[in-house]
């Protein structure tokens, strides 16, 4: 399942809902991305996430599908927020559930690496010294490329 939303999410409730009624699940991995108050040597007051409605959902669904094909997953969930966020706020949640932990761990890392380079989101950071668009990092491409067949 994928969700793109402005509202915050409750990780415990999401895990419970995702695993409910499926006793074949033996392990659940969740990753929660948070907004930091520092970017390089800049202090950040707010971060605003813009996205491409329609294409975002399409790409997230495809990334999840790819993970389902590559690993033995019983359930998975991606939630990505957009709009204005503050340091400490949750931005992104990936949950992977499988019979054995290795599939859940690997698939979760894959989801995060791929969504960073394939989902159309853009971050704008605002601090006391003004605001700017966050630039993509080469290290993100490197992280995503290690999952290439």
């Amino acid at each position: 399942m994928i969700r793109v939303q402005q509202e915050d999410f409750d990780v415990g409730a999401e895990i419970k809902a995702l695993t409910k009624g499926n006793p074949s699940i033996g392990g659940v991995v969740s990753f929660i991305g948070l907004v930091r108050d520092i970017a390089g040597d800049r202090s950040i007051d707010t971060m605003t996430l813009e996205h491409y409605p329609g294409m975002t959902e399409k790409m997230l669904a495809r990334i999840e599908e790819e993970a389902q094909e590559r690993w033995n997953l019983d359930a998975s969930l991606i939630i990505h927020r957009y709009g204005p966020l503050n340091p400490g706020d949750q931005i992104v949640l990936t949950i992977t559930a499988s019979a054995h932990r290795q599939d859940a761990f690997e698939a979760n890392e894959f989801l995060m690496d791929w969504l960073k380079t394939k989902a159309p989101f853009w971050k704008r950071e605002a601090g006391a010294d003004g605001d700017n668009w966050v630039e993509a990092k080469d290290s993100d491409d490197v992280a995503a490329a290690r999952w290439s067949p």
Partner: protein
Amino acid sequence: MTLMYFAWLKQKIGMGEEELTPHDNVVTVADLIDWLCSRGDNFATAFEDRDVIRVAINQEFAELDDPIAGAAEIAFFPPVTGGQT
């Protein structure tokens, strides 16, 4: 067709979306950018560095030399920066 601009492209161009019918001699994405740049300085400035421009045709990633024939929606944007750093 619908053209969409995101992030700093949207800011530099001054709008997020417009309906346009490009000239017949506009065949590829690169042609489309050339044509857009001829429409005003705001476009010329936004598309100045093409290495940092990404494009999607009908919500699928595309390349600068891809044809635009039959496209209903073309979006231009900088490299994506979602997820968590």
